């Protein structure tokens, strides 16, 4: 199997449908921002640009690992903004404490909108934590590095 880093193609279409709201100044029936989550997966998962939503298949086990199915809720640290001609946003780093598991990638998804996928993160191989803290450190919050960018 494989986990390929990608912005999910379905997410791009859904942006054009006004589905995903990363900030609160939304113009649709609900004016609240959506909730975005980050789920972890083992190397047995198949995740890439064709992934359309959250799945429990090959998600990191929640048995004795301090990991809960569905993953962590992300905090938007920078609501959508722009620099030059690039729009971007950022999340705070997210951590699992007193954790014991191995993960090879993650899926960012919108739990408010039917668990629709946003992006796949590949860790480049298995990353293991044993009775410690597992942190996903998002890249620098800037137009050339932020985790979500429209160039």
């Amino acid at each position: 199997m494989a986990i390929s880093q990608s912005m999910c193609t379905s997410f791009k279409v859904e942006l054009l449908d006004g589905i995903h709201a990363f900030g609160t100044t939304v113009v649709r029936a609900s004016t609240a921002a959506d909730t975005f989550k980050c789920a972890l997966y083992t190397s047995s998962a198949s995740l890439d640009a064709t992934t359309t939503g959250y799945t429990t298949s090959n998600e990191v086990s929640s048995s004795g690992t301090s990991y809960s199915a569905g993953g962590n809720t992300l905090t938007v640290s920078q609501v959508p903004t722009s620099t030059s001609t690039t729009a971007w946003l950022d999340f705070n780093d997210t951590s699992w404490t007193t954790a014991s598991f191995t993960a090879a990638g993650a899926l960012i998804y919108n739990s408010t909108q039917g668990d629709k996928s946003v992006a796949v993160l590949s860790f480049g191989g298995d990353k293991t934590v044993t009775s410690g803290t597992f942190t996903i450190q998002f890249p620098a919050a800037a137009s050339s590095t932020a985790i979500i960018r429209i160039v």
Partner: protein
Amino acid sequence: MAVSTAMCTSFKVDLLFARHNFALSGGNTFKAALIKTAEAGTYGAASTAYANITGNSDEATVGGGGSGYTAGGVTLTRVDPTSSGTTAYTDFADAVITLSGASATFASNGMMIYNDTLTTPTADASVSIHAFSGSPSASGAGATFTIQFPTPDASNAILRLA
């Protein structure tokens, strides 16, 4: 000044706030406002709203006592967003402006596509700017000025997220 083809940067940010809906069913109303020749303003990626055009008195008008184009522009017919490969795209049906009046004249240097439904945080927020080559024109009763959108596919569609 100048008209430069570009996706407006403010539009990219708006997408991440879920402010635009291009869906055929229940989507927003999008319009194409045409920019006159010898425009005073500069239009491109930094454009943010239809008001940019009116603020410069740069909207095209029908000359020679004719009619066929009204301020605010032409309402566009949406096509459901879709994807091919890893590119998402959407399209509009071609739009036709038909002139009335024997001496009617019409010419344009470009257009702004904007969201006529949006009122906040920016009214009539811009989507994109399109420069026309050679300032196309039409004249005479029944003459048509057609906005022909490119082939709706992942390589050519008018709005694409690659």
